[in-house]
């Protein structure tokens, strides 16, 4: 009797032919699905916009963002912003009004999808540089992916434009960093928390390099102010259960929470924070990676009264921003919002195009060396205001702003610097006086300089 239950008997009854038929069906399903997922092989090459790029004359640019996997939620929107910028450059609309293409040449994108897999970023950047022979690459979001591709770009001497606020402590001749350095985000927000909320901070974050480094810098800044970190907790990437961390926050009774959670952990945390009965009046959350996009996903009622520190908010009042928001919504739908990382992905594409234009107009070829020298010192009237690539350290002069979330899911800007702040790649709370100055022209030697002094805050002249 027992035998009739055994699968082997049924297996035996199915003939060899049937076995092959069904077996291959199962394997086929697996293969098909692996392809759907992106699995490392989805490289699509496309010329956008007019689509009329004559192939020999186009400038090839790599676009490397994950559109599948856990980080896709964010990177897809960076890709959207990049697509918008390149369409505007090719068609001569938006900030590129009156021109068409880069000195008459169209930009041709080579789009790859690294599937939120750090190793694939590395492989795909090699492929973009060696096989597709792109002039430069726009891409990456997490620090883990940047660290994964950095050796490739340095070894092959190619250029990456990286649009994300990050933990700093890096200064490469092959990367232009167009997101915030620590001094453009952490250095202003921690004193703000100390003065407005109190001295005790509870730090949380996702369990990988950026949140940990960022919290380490923030801790040093808070202790410099005379404050104290009363708790330090990390959750695995993608965690959506925060009941324990919230209970520890309740127990520690901090004056504020500093959140460096990323991705789908963000909505879950804010929802459960409110669900646990903690109001922003009691313990406000100051966050770096929480943007308009996540607020929309969690529902504004959960974020109302909490804070984020960013270079850009959708509510920034400039004519450039008004146009940017309008054009973005026209292309991707009225229910979409813009945020700080998208704005950085957008503005860096224009830095790249301006630099390319400068190279071509000087009658030179676009190579890594010419593009690098031309990108240094580029200025652009971005949605957040006038920004500039620092010619010394390849980071970007950016505004520093703090926004308080409102009932409509948009931020009321409660703090802003008068103009863009000069970037300092090394956290000054941890490495006092350490500077990064690339020689001109760049010979790729070590750019680190130790001054040992306090560095003054410098602003971009508007």
């Amino acid at each position, binding site marked *: *009797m027992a035998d*009739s*239950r055994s*699968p082997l008997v*049924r297996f035996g009854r199915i003939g060899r032919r049937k076995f092959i038929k*069904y*077996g291959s*069906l*199962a*394997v086929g*399903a*697996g*293969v*098909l*699905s*692996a392809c*759907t*997922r992106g699995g490392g092989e989805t490289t699509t090459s496309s010329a956008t916009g007019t689509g009329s790029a004559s192939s020999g004359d186009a400038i090839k640019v790599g676009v490397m963002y994950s*559109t*599948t996997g*856990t980080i*896709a*939620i964010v990177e*897809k929107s960076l890709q959207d912003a990049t697509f918008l910028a390149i369409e505007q450059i090719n068609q001569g609309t938006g900030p590129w009004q009156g021109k068409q293409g880069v000195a008459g040449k169209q930009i041709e994108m080579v789009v790859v999808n690294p599937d939120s897999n750090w190793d694939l970023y590395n492989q795909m950047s090699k492929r973009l540089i060696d096989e597709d022979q792109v002039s430069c690459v726009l891409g990456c979001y997490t620090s883990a992916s940047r660290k994964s591709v950095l050796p490739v770009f340095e070894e092959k001497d190619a250029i990456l434009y990286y649009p994300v606020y990050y933990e700093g402590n890096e200064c490469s001749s092959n990367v232009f960093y167009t997101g915030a350095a620590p001094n453009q985000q952490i250095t202003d927000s921690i004193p703000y928390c100390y003065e407005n909320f109190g001295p005790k901070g509870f730090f949380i974050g996702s*369990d990988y390099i950026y949140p940990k480094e960022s919290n380490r810098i923030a801790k040093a800044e808070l202790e410099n102010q005379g404050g*104290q970190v*009363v*708790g*330090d*907790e*990390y*959750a*695995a990437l*993608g*965690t*959506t*259960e925060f*009941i*324990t*961390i919230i*209970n*520890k926050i*309740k*127990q*520690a009774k901090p004056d504020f929470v500093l959140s460096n959670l990323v991705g*789908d952990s*963000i*909505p*879950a945390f804010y*929802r*459960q924070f409110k*669900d*646990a*009965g903690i109001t922003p009046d009691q313990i406000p959350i100051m966050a770096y990676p929480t943007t308009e*996009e*996540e607020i*929309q*996903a*969690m*529902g504004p009622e959960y974020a109302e009264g909490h804070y984020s520190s960013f270079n850009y908010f959708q509510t920034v009042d400039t004519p450039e921003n008004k146009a940017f928001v309008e054009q973005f919504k026209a292309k991707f739908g009225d229910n979409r919002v813009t945020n700080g990382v998208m704005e950085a992905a957008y503005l860096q594409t224009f830095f790249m195009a301006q630099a390319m234009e400068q190279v071509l107009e000087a009658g030179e070829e676009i190579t890594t060396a010419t593009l690098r020298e031309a990108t240094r010192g580029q200025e652009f009237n971005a949605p957040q205001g006038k920004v500039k690539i620092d010619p010394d350290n390849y980071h970007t002069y950016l505004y520093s702003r703090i926004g308080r979330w409102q009932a409509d899911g948009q931020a009321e800007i409660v703090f802003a610097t008068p103009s863009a702040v000069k970037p300092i790649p090394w956290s000054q709370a941890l490495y006092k006086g350490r500077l990064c100055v690339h020689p001109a022209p760049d010979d790729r030697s070590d750019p680190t300089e130790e001054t040992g002094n306090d560095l003054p805050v410098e602003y971009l002249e508007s």
Partner: protein
Amino acid sequence: MLGFNSIQAHIFYLAQEATAATDATGGADFYTFANQLLNGVGIVGVLLLTGLGLAITFGVMRIINLAHGEFIMLGAYVTFLMQSLFQMDLLLTIPFAFLGTALIGALTELTVIRRLYGRPLETLLATWGLSIVIQGVVKLIFSAQLKYVKSPPYISGNLSVITGQDGTPLVSISYYRMFIIAVALLMLGITLYLLYQTPLGRQVRAVAQNREMAKCLGVNTSLIDLLTFAYGCGLAGIAGAVISSLKSVSPPMGQDYLVDAWMVVVTGGVDKLIGVLAGSFLIGEANAAIAFMLNDPVARVIVLAAVIVLIRYRPEGLFTVQKRA
């Protein structure tokens, strides 16, 4: 040996880090720990709800369904769809989530699972492939963006179990967590009733125990298989609908629940449905207690390791009646 030592050292290091953090907060007192244990019940509710569907598809039907997480995700998306199209209340969307996912489950059974009965390895591969396909399709239709699901406004706030002298709640649990537990227990009750008190349930159990004999006695086994699998998927859909407003709704969300659901079912044992309750209670509370003393990532490692050890020595799970061979 060296490898083991370094792992041990790593855990020790993590533990050190965590203790330092707790020390800074002035140590754990009784109320906070009690609060944490009560919060653990909140985790138990989610585990029970997400594990129940799997207890049907794996426990009763012995189908290794790696797409279980995706059925949870589909339930959440049905809720999102109903809310954005008809401004429906979350509670009203639950039946739709059940029907929607049950329908997709039935389709899956007809097209894939049915052809692979008795071949666990192929089923495993096929459902794994299916999970990726479902994720891909959802991403194509709804994009990769996180989705907003409105929670029912009348289930908010907290129940204070112990209140301090100044009126501050010392030990409390949110009403929504209690709602999740209530739904989970209700679904468990309904499932038990269906399985053990109705003629249909008797047929399901008969097919699970001896398919050939049941067939001989006139049971339409293929229909029973279809209904049972669809019901298991429907339960996953209910789980997705209910937890969607407490967590995040995105295409990869199901992956997170899949591992937990499997741990629950394997720990509790698959022969008795009540094992799911016991399994989720054990894992939820163990997770809560260890995470409180150390931290979340370490708690997950320890609980997973404990489940592996358990499977090694009791592969049939904790709550299984000893059967004769």
